[in-house]
């Protein structure tokens, strides 16, 4: 073995120490993980139980839920927007879609999380998303207007709560009905400082909020499918204002 020259060794140590010391002064970027959670009112939603009720008096269940959030971003106190993911398809039956992770998010103090529910009209074209089977399963047929993808498919059962009726199905499918843009922007205040340490956030969808405030949604009145009903899409869009919330864990 060669002998390590003492002087050079000391120099190396010194530089290494200096390097290490420098790093501590500037805040460091960090990974950010976001969990997508589904709630009904104050509790996480359970699947396939006719236990939830709407303002008009129906009991309903949650069977399937898939939706897109696009341009999921964090906003710094100086207004800088940092996009974490261009488009995310959450499917409650696919565990891998429950979480996204953004690597090396810039250090700083963030005061809001923003995203679009659904896909904006200009972006709702076939090339916006990867050509995967999961995305193809969200196709919106051209007969129901230009716009390539549903925003959301929420499905389940409902009934009136007593023996006078039978259990029915509902399919609350939102999207670009006849070419209109029913997507909407969400901005949620947060208090998040990124400095080297991984951070965890949650985006919560409260299903209950789709069905009231300001408009009470009536499964019977709107029928099993609403992709061809602009007035129903309008109601959903208006009710959507407080469906989502962002939480820093």
């Amino acid at each position, binding site marked *: 073995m060669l002998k390590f020259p003492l002087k050079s060794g000391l120099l190396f140590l010194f530089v290494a120490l200096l390097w290490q010391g420098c790093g501590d002064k500037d805040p460091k970027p960090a990974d950010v993980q976001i969990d997508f959670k589904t709630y009904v009112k104050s509790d996480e939603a359970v699947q396939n139980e006719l236990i939830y009720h709407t303002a008009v008096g129906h009991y309903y269940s949650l069977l399937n839920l898939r939706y897109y959030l696009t341009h999921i971003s964090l906003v710094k106190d100086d207004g800088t927007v940092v996009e974490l993911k261009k488009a995310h398809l959450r499917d409650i039956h696919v565990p891998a879609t429950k979480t996204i992770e953004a690597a090396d998010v810039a250090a700083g103090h963030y005061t809001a999380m923003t995203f679009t529910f659904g896909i904006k009209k200009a972006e709702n074209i076939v090339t916006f998303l990867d050509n995967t*089977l999961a995305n193809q*399963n969200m196709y919106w047929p051209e007969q129901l207007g230009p716009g390539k993808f549903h925003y959301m498919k929420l499905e389940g059962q409902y009934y009136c709560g007593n023996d006078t009726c039978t259990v029915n199905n509902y399919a609350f499918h939102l999207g670009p009905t006849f070419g209109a843009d029913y997507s909407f922007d969400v901005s949620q205040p947060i208090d998040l400082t990124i400095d080297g340490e991984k951070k965890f956030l949650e985006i919560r969808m409260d299903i209950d909020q789709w069905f009231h405030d300001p408009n009470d949604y009536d499964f019977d009145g709107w029928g099993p499918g609403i992709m061809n009903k602009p007035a129903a899409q309008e109601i959903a869009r208006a009710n959507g204002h407080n469906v989502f919330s962002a939480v820093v864990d």
Partner: protein
Amino acid sequence: MNKLAFIFLVVLVAWGCKDPEPAKPAEQEYQPTPVTLDLPYLFPKMVIPADNPLTEEGIALGRKLFYEPMLSGNGTQSCADCHMQNSSFTDPARFSIGIDGLSGKRNAMPVINVGWMDKLFWDGRANGVEDQATFPVVDPLEMHADWDQVVEKLKAIPSYQELFRKAFKTSGITKDRTVKAIAQFERTMVSYNSKTDKVAVIGGGVFYSDLEQEGFDLFNSERGDCFHCHSGILFTDNLFHNNGLDETHDGDKGLFRVTNNPADIGKFKTPTLRNIEFTAPYMHDGRFATLDEVLEFYATGVKVSSTLDPLMGHQGGIDMTPHEREAVKAYLLTLSDTTFLNNPDFFDPD
């Protein structure tokens, strides 16, 4: 001087860290030729497992194995006996008959576009194409063999040793490599040459007739609602639904047999509608002999049960008029792809 020594040292250390020279390939090793599937752009990306890339040699071996009766217990039945090319690789019989003369309670499924499937069989019990190919060989109702014996039989044939060596760089024949080769062949069995594919090419000059267009419109409407399950360019979402064939599910419980989740009782995999003209009889139990019967069912025969799919909101059926049924049928027939049925790449190689 000292500085120089330091640099010299660093270089030496870095050199020492370098990976040792990669081992030279063995003299006899054969490099299989990689294959990329050339698919129309509308088709979704096919996810191919990293440990089973497509190669010319692998596909050729898989094709031979697909037609190989030695995979069955008594050497009389191959995959192709129940998956016949002129029936879009399914069986025109309602229930296929295995080597012991027994039959099950399910209609064979077409082997078409299976490369996109991660759950196979009517109940999804196989995870991926490789896994699927392990089942029929040992199924007592089908080929009723024993994998160890099948592997021994293949090993005894020098030409197979050579084919495995070319496909997998080793003449070692195993169950794992056998199903990998079959899976490679199956991934090439893509149908993309129907009239609908031609209409989809903008500026291609091929159009639907008025009746086909009417059927297309109904298929893709909230009322017809076929598109939600028979979706996208593959005409299946590759998911599981109860489309309302039965009120009770005392017999075949479908997906429930795999998941044990009561919410899955009566759910079956959505079949592709590509080449539907050639895949009769229809449904998991082959109960309908014709497309007219299928459309009659969707029009008037949808049965309510607790797991009826929410997308089958129209209980009793969607009340299609006879003319509308004709229109939907005309549209379904635009999914016929005779080039797939006659593609020499899928013929029995012997």
